């Protein structure tokens, strides 16, 4: 009797204590488990971010970090120093030119700044109407006009819209380009979704993901030439390449269907076996009684 009382009381005490300090422990737990050395929370230990979010800074500087945090760059571990240079781990060297610090680019330097990494895009942009206008006159769209500077999101067709594109000319030309892109972009979206689904089911999508990405990247780079005829001319070529990927994706879906069917067949066989064995068991019971 006593034993039960002790054990039951112990259990209740434990549960009671939980109610007492829920909130404070969660914080400690998160600090000790989630933000430990192994989970290098992106940018949290960066000297850049430490200073640029401190109280001494103007609100507009805080905003840069805020915007970056919600960006596609941040999600892919592209941090301050990857674009601006400098040393993120050492506050004293964080803005030194010996560590490659570039600072904020002047307006005219923007294409080169972004083109440090996005080489193919810059190559096409320079040859485009947009690029030539911007470089010769300083007017017209640069990278940040359409993509923003710190709040860069994953590029999509929605960036081509009336509000953005009619700042300098009529929307008609942008609409034409959007239409030219439409079919291939659609296919690209479908493939991206299919690959995500296949991956969830354990299919090895590595090769297809790479093929998808390079076609996607090349097509996007082509767009930056802002040449509707070029885009139209290449569309059938890209459609063909994408159809090869789609065929492989279809094969994978067939593989998944086969797996499901084979498992279903075994499921049914075991139901059958179960019924037969159950009936056999009952017949033995009857015989004895």
């Amino acid at each position, binding site marked *: 009797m006593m034993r039960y009382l002790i054990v039951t009381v112990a259990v209740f005490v434990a549960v009671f204590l939980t109610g007492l300090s829920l909130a404070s422990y969660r914080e400690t737990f998160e600090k000790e488990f989630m933000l430990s050395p192994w989970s290098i929370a992106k940018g949290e230990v960066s000297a850049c971010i430490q200073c640029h979010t401190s109280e001494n800074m103007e609100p507009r500087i805080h905003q840069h970090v805020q915007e970056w945090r919600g960006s596609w760059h941040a999600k892919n571990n592209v941090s301050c120093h990857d674009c601006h240079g400098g040393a993120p781990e050492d506050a004293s060297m964080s803005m030194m030119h010996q560590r490659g610090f570039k600072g904020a680019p002047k307006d005219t330097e923007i294409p080169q700044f972004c083109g440090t990494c996005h080489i*193919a895009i810059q190559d096409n942009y320079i040859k485009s109407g947009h690029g030539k206008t911007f470089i010769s006159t300083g007017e017209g769209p640069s990278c940040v006009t359409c993509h923003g500077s710190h709040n860069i999101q994953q590029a999509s067709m929605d960036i081509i819209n009336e509000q953005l594109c009619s700042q300098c000319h009529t929307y008609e030309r942008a609409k034409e380009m959007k239409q030219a892109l439409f079919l291939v972009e659609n296919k690209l979206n479908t493939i991206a979704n299919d690959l995500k689904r296949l991956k969830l089911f354990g299919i090895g999508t590595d090769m297809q993901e790479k093929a998808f990405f390079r076609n996607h990247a090349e097509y996007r780079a082509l767009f930056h030439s802002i040449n509707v005829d070029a885009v139209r001319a290449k569309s059938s070529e890209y459609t063909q390449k994408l159809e090869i990927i789609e065929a492989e994706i279809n094969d994978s879906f067939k593989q998944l269907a086969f797996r499901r069917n084979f498992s279903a067949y075994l499921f049914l*066989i075991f139901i059958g076996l179960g019924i037969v064995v159950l009936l056999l068991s009952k017949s033995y019971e009857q015989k004895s009684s």
Partner: protein
Amino acid sequence: MERRQLLKTSLAFLGTTTLISFVYPASKFLVPPKNSAKDTPLTIDKDDIPPGTAKEIIFNEIPMVVINRKGSGFIALSRICTHLGCLVGYDKFNNKLVCPCHAGEFDLEGNVLSGPATKALLRYPLKITADDITIG
């Protein structure tokens, strides 16, 4: 008794079917298939690639580059960047391979020099004779 006999027979039949349904996959599992027979070797003339230059080819549906490195001989590397899959290009002025998507750089052995890639480019074996190079 008749019913029990029927049940026993069904059990034997279903049991054997089940056994085969496991033995068949197991036997196929134990003997993996040979790699797909697209392995017809590709031969290139050595003279097509003077020293310091490279030639882009497609072998087994994989885009590759064969480089004639000055002083180190021929090498065949996959052009598929190990970051996200764009095709790297040969930069003959700087003796490296550069990816146009995110500026990943590889040396002429395929090792990562800088950029977002973490793995080296895949390398393919070459057979070199007096006049030509064969892949596969």
